[in-house]
């Protein structure tokens, strides 16, 4: 029964992937991609990787879907005037993708049995950190530097999006979707849902220390609620030049960096935690990161400034 479910799930994902590639309309391709992400999240659940499943659903499907949708909406007016790529380009892209797929498949199939793993070592040393969720342990203890750099990259990506704005509009207000229209039903949802969504986002961040969840998943939920509120017109998008907004953006990475640097003084190494204080420090860093990730992702989806800031 379970095998049948897994096989049909895998089959559906492959068919959906093929359909996403061959469909001509960008908008349909993005919708298919969002569904594809949700099905892949289901696969991660079947593989007992709930952390990865949550991230895939929230980031891979949700936030990326929102970014792609806004891109598709922007491209729509010019889409029909652009000539599709020629047969040579399509063949070249297909060949490169096929080689990558075959390479990944070969690596997965040719792994020695049992596969080389650091999991037992990681699990054996986890209790020292005071954390219960091994994924959070890897992210904030063993590979904390990667996690820190990842958050910095996110802010850099936002700087990249903002620099698309015209010079005189720098620090202005993002336009959000071009095709939004006020609707009382959407207003109702934007007033009702954030109470549930914000609570769930904070819970995901808080529970990440011991159960599946964490800063990225929680932050993505905050983003979703904020985007809903902005799209429904309940609250306007903030001016990108606001000092408080920019402080929020860097609060998480900065706090994480400060904790990391103070590791030199109190624990003898960068990003090291003193014994007994690992969990509280990680929870504080995660809280700040959740807020920063939520704001950064929301502004990424909102796009560059397109209106001047009111004086």
């Amino acid at each position, binding site marked *: 029964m379970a095998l049948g479910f897994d096989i049909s799930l895998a089959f559906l994902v492959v068919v959906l992937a093929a359909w996403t590639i061959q469909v001509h309309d960008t908008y349909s391709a993005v919708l298919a991609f969002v569904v594809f992400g949700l099905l892949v999240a289901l696969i991660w659940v079947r593989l007992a990787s709930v952390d990865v499943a949550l991230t895939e659903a929230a980031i891979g499907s949700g936030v990326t879907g929102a970014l792609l949708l806004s891109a598709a909406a922007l491209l729509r007016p010019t889409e029909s005037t652009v000539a599709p790529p020629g047969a040579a380009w399509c063949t070249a892209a297909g060949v490169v993708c096929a080689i990558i797929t075959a390479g990944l498949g070969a690596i997965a199939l040719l792994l020695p049995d049992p596969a080389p793993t650091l999991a037992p070592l990681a699990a054996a040393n986890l209790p020292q950190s005071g954390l219960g969720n091994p994924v959070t342990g890897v992210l904030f203890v063993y590979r904390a530097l990667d996690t820190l750099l990842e958050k910095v990259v996110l802010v850099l990506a936002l700087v990249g999006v903002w620099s698309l704005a015209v010079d005189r509009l720098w620090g202005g207000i993002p336009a959000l979707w071009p095709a939004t229209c006020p*609707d009382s*039903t*959407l207003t109702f*949802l934007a007033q*009702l*849902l954030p109470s*549930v969504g914000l609570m769930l986002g904070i819970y995901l961040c808080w529970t990440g220390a011991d159960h599946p969840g964490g800063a990225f998943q929680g932050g993505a939920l905050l983003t979703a609620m904020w985007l809903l509120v902005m799209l429904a017109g309940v609250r306007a998008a903030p001016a990108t030049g606001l000092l408080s907004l920019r402080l929020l953006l860097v609060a998480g990475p900065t706090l994480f960096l400060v904790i990391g640097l103070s590791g030199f003084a109190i624990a003898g190494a960068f990003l090291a935690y003193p014994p007994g204080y690992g969990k509280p420090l990680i929870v504080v860093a995660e809280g700040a990161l959740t807020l920063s990730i939520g704001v950064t992702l929301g502004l990424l989806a909102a796009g560059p400034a397109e209106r001047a800031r009111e004086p």
Partner: protein
Amino acid sequence: MTLALDLLTIVGVSAGCFFFVAGTVGLLRFPDALTRMHALTKADNLGLGLIVLGLLPQAAGLGHALKLVAIWLLAQVSAAVASQLIAGAVLRQRSAIWP
């Protein structure tokens, strides 16, 4: 008692699946956006509702049962709002074509 609860689960989930199949058939067969949405809401509302009802006897405790009901309620809200928005878009499109 367990048998009765299991029976309730089987009946509830099967009936829910029936509404999902019926809703999907409607989505594929009905002629325009509004009727297709009418079919989909049956799947979302009745289908998911019956499946949740069927799963309630299998919940590990009151907390799990409440979570299941919360999932159904959230899906209800999102389905209701999404169908209102789509219907609104359809109406605007129609009045743009036939003013």
